[in-house]
């Protein structure tokens, strides 16, 4: 215990990571009935966490990776170690998480004001922040898994926050269960590693994989299994459908979950043990395929929906696919960088959408547009900034990270991945600007009917005042994020330096981490190097033009005067339907679950229990009692019959002994 207070770094880590947990406990137990206090507590604690994270980043920016660990328990030959691993990646991620969570909580002060579950909301937010931060700095895969699950749990509560709504609770359940499916794979992978390798420490794993301390078979198998976790958490194909449904949660929750935290956790985990993954070529190849498929599929879905949040949800999935593609093709930094920038602009997009939704009480982009969405200047500007970043337009942050990814992809021997990446970029730009144009240039102009008109005088003013507080609580985080999106891209090189720096760092972890990071550096440098050498300008042009092409198509269809405001896909209803219904994946799952599980196994097993097992037992009982009735026939009351029985038995006994 004493060590925590002696070591400021450790103290900051422990405090920052765990303060939200205590906040949650305090809120749930004590301040449940005082929403104001609850929210203040929560925001305060997450702010402290964010500060801790930033200061850690600052303090350790040039320091070697740090590892704290303690033996949590021993069972047999199994040593379960808990600890923190502070290296550039985790510090970066910790900072991102801290900041985004903090911003979202501030935003929620406005967005959630007046909600009956205000305290509960903040309790879960704190829980989520706690789980996420601990996951990020986890020192071992098992610890990572534990908090990974906790993240899932917190997201379950947050997604299903409006539990009176059936669809919300359904979405929460779906998210949790689908995550679980992936997690089981993850879990099995961990067990496999535990049995085959005996240690789940992250540096050790990375080291062992790169120095061939692990057999190839075990490596591939466990890597594939662990990748299942990524599939689940980061909503990769085929487990991607929970994410759009998860939009049932409050918008800030979506922002939090789908920008930097929960869904990014999968990608984070991928990059966390990237050297380990890169030890297995097959696993990487598999991940690449999955990432590509996911990206294309979800982009296609985003093209047809009119729901604001759905668009961003699909977009998140597709961007995650991008990141997985990047990582899977060796672009360690590209993936992490895109994760970083994406965290910024996706949070921005969601939060802006949240303002629209809060204002217009609808998710439909067409209605928002008609009702004058563009009149809300700040969010309108910001959302455009976000969309530009998403589309990869210079100088927004998305441009840089997307370029990095494309260059990595281009370095792949098979150019199909690069083509897919480009195509994805086109689609991304298309659907994001489809949305922007819908709001900015609605069909038939704005209907001049303000929804506040029917409110009375004084209450109106009061509302305005209140509105102001609420509005600014939401607007300030948005503006901050917009600013970040603008400038973050230019931090590429320092960041790259930071992330890839550790190669030459001597230190206590050099033995473990050094080699691992060398590999990272090697692989990444190889990828990037190829890209830069092979045709940097060419790539640049291609990337930018892809984005612009998408925007142009969107403008043609939605933006220009007299545009039909119908997507080109509406000409092919079958495909529209296909996209709209998420490639029938949900239908497939639902049907499968209904027919195979509920109608099939469950009723079969229930029937088996009732009829065969219970029936058998009851049958035994009935048989026993029946044989009682049968035997009572021997006691028929007829004296001579009884005597006959007696004499026959005696006679038989006599005969038995004689013969």
């Amino acid at each position, binding site marked *: 215990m004493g060590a925590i207070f002696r070591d400021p770094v450790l103290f900051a880590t422990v405090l920052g990571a765990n303060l939200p947990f205590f906040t949650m406990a305090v809120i749930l137990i004590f301040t449940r009935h005082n929403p104001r206090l609850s929210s203040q507590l929560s925001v305060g604690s997450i702010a402290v966490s964010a500060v801790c994270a930033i200061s850690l980043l600052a303090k350790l920016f040039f320091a070697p990776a740090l590892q704290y660990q303690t033996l949590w328990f021993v069972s047999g030959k199994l040593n379960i170690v808990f600890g923190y691993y502070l290296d550039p990646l985790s510090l970066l991620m910790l900072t991102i998480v801290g900041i985004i969570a903090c911003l979202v909580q501030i935003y929620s002060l406005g967005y959630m004001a007046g909600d009956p579950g205000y305290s509960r909301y903040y309790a879960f937010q704190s829980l989520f922040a706690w789980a996420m931060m601990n996951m990020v700095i986890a020192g071992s895969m098992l610890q990572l898994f534990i908090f990974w699950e906790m993240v899932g749990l917190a997201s379950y509560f947050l997604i299903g926050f409006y539990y009176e709504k059936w669809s919300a609770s359904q979405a929460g359940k779906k998210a949790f269960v689908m995550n679980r499916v992936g997690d089981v794979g993850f879990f099995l992978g961990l067990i496999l590693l535990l049995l085959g390798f005996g240690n789940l420490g992250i540096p050790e794993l990375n080291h062992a994989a790169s120095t061939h301390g692990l057999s190839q078979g075990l490596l591939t198998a466990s890597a594939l299994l662990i990748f299942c976790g990524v599939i689940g958490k980061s909503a990769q194909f085929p487990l991607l459908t929970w994410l759009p449904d998860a939009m049932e949660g409050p918008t800030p929750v979506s922002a939090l979950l789908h920008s930097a935290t929960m869904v990014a956790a999968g990608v984070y985990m991928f990059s966390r043990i990237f050297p380990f993954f890169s030890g297995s070529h097959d696993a990487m190849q598999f991940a690449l395929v999955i990432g590509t498929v996911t990206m294309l599929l979800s982009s296609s879905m985003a093209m047809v929906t009119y729901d604001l949040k759905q668009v961003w949800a699909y977009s998140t999935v597709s961007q995650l696919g991008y990141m997985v593609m990047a990582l899977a093709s060796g672009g360690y930094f590209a993936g992490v960088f895109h994760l970083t920038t994406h965290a910024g602009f996706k949070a921005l997009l969601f939060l802006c959408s949240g303002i629209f939704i809060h204002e217009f009480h609808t998710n439909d982009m067409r209605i928002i547009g008609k009702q004058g969405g563009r009149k809300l200047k700040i969010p309108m500007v910001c959302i455009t900034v976000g969309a530009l970043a998403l589309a990869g337009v210079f100088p927004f942050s998305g441009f840089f990270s997307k370029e990095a990814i494309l260059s990595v992809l281009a370095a792949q021997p098979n150019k199909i991945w690069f083509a897919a990446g480009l195509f994805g970029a086109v689609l991304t730009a298309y659907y994001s600007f489809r949305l922007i144009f819908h709001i900015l240039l609605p069909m038939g102009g704005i209907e001049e009917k303000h929804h506040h008109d029917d409110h009375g005088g004084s209450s109106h003013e009061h509302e305005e005042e209140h509105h102001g507080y609420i509005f600014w609580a939401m607007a300030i985080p948005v503006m901050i994020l917009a600013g970040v999106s603008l400038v973050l891209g230019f931090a590429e090189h320092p960041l790259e330096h930071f992330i890839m720096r550790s190669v030459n760092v001597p230190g206590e972890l050099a033995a473990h981490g050094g080699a691992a990071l060398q590999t990272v550096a090697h692989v990444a440098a190889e990828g990037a190097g190829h890209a830069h050498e092979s045709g940097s300008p060419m790539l640049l042009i291609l990337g930018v033009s892809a984005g612009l092409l998408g925007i142009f198509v969107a403008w043609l269809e939605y933006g220009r005067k007299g545009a039909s405001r119908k997507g080109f896909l509406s000409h092919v209803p079958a495909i529209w339907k296909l996209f709209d219904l998420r490639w029938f994946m949900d239908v497939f799952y639902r049907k499968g679950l209904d027919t195979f599980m509920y109608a099939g196994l469950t009723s079969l097993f229930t029937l088996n229990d009732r009829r065969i097992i219970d029936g058998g037992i009851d049958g035994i009982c009935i048989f*026993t*009692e029946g*044989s*009682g*009735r049968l*035997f*009572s026939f*021997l*006691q028929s*009351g007829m*004296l001579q019959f*009884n*005597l006959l*029985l*007696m*004499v026959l*038995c*005696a006679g038989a*006994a*006599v005969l*038995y*002994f*004689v013969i």
Partner: protein
Amino acid sequence: MTDFMLFLPELFFILGALLFFIFSLRKTPNPAGYHRWAVVLAAAGLLVTVASSHQEGMLFFNCYRVDLFSQVFKVLMALGTIWVIFSSGELKGIDTRQHAEYYFLIFVCTLAMMMLVSSVELLTIYVSIELSSYSLYLLVPMRRGEERYFECGIKYFMIGVTASGLMLFGISLLFGVGHTTYVPQLIKVLPTVISQPAAIVGLVLALAGFFFKLAVFPFHIWAPDVYQGACNQVTTYIATVSKMAAAAMIIRFAGISGGASPAMIKLLIVLSIASMTFGNLVALIQKDIKRLLAYSSIAHAGYILIGILTLNSQGYAAAMYYAAAYLIMNYSVFMVIMKVADDGHNLQIKELAGLHKRSPLLAMTLMLGLFGLAGIPPTAGFTGKFLVFAAALGKGYLYLVIIGMVNATISLYYYLIVFKAAYLLKPVKEYPPVRVDFWTQFMSFALVIMSIYLGVFPDRFLSLTEAAARSLF
């Protein structure tokens, strides 16, 4: 003088019998007075029996052996007798004019059984068993008022005399093959001639009489009707005291073969399994509680046989333990029945409804008794079963023990039904409250404590029965 002392318990019971014979000659009956006398006499008889329980010696030209084995059973029988007599305060089932004869016959029967357990000569054994049987033949049809149950008297008689005919025939074969009527000599002779059919058949047929007493399948057929048809007190007597004598005699007789005949053991195993299974299965469908207990007694005869058929002292000790436990728990149940049905009618199970409210103490006694019969620890019934099964497994009869345990599970069902009636069911009509006097309360507590004490602290009594079993040889 010492001879006289050895015979003291029997003499005491003869005295009691004579006293009631004199009472029976009086013109005006005095049931309450008879009861008081009977209780005092039986209590004194118990004391005398206990006092002479450690005596040993031979009487009547070696026809009569007083040893620990016989004395333990005599104490048990005296105990059972005082209990039955204690419960005879309201002897509504028997005409008041016949109370003196009732006590007379009870005393004679106990006397006969005491003589039975001490007899070591075939004719003495036969005469004793006939004397006790005749007393019971007469006690059973004494019941007043229930015409429909009268037939049980003739059934009991007919089956009894047939069984005794078989027994006599068996004894004659034993006499023929062993040339002697002394049991100790037979024990020496028989193992040498056990390969002769006459020896083993004689033994089996001779056992028939005792099987009849103990209600072992297939000589059980009287039990349900007699239990149901006799008046409650007589049923209690048959169910408790007479079983002790039968168990004792089977132990004594089964040992004669000296374990030299595997076929005989097989036969005993078959009979034991048949008794347990038949008794338990048919008991499942009973409504009349006494009839149910009759079937349960058939099953318990099977359990006792398990101990006996090991043919070693451990098994005999276990069987004795079981018999004693059976006495206690069976009497617990019957005492409750007699109290609840104090007008002497036949209790149906459903009439026990709400007993836990009408008399919590009796309900608890009933519960403990039923648990004991079902073999639920920590009652004596459980420990008895455990010991019996242990003895059987000591001989390697695993399947027999499994069958026994399955049977115990089956039996649990009907005991639970009785228990359910007492504790769960709401009475369909208003039953009169149960009057519980001080002595009944005392007896309830005593029974509960005895049952649990024997179950939890079996060591002392077990070593006693072991010593008794060793004294057999």
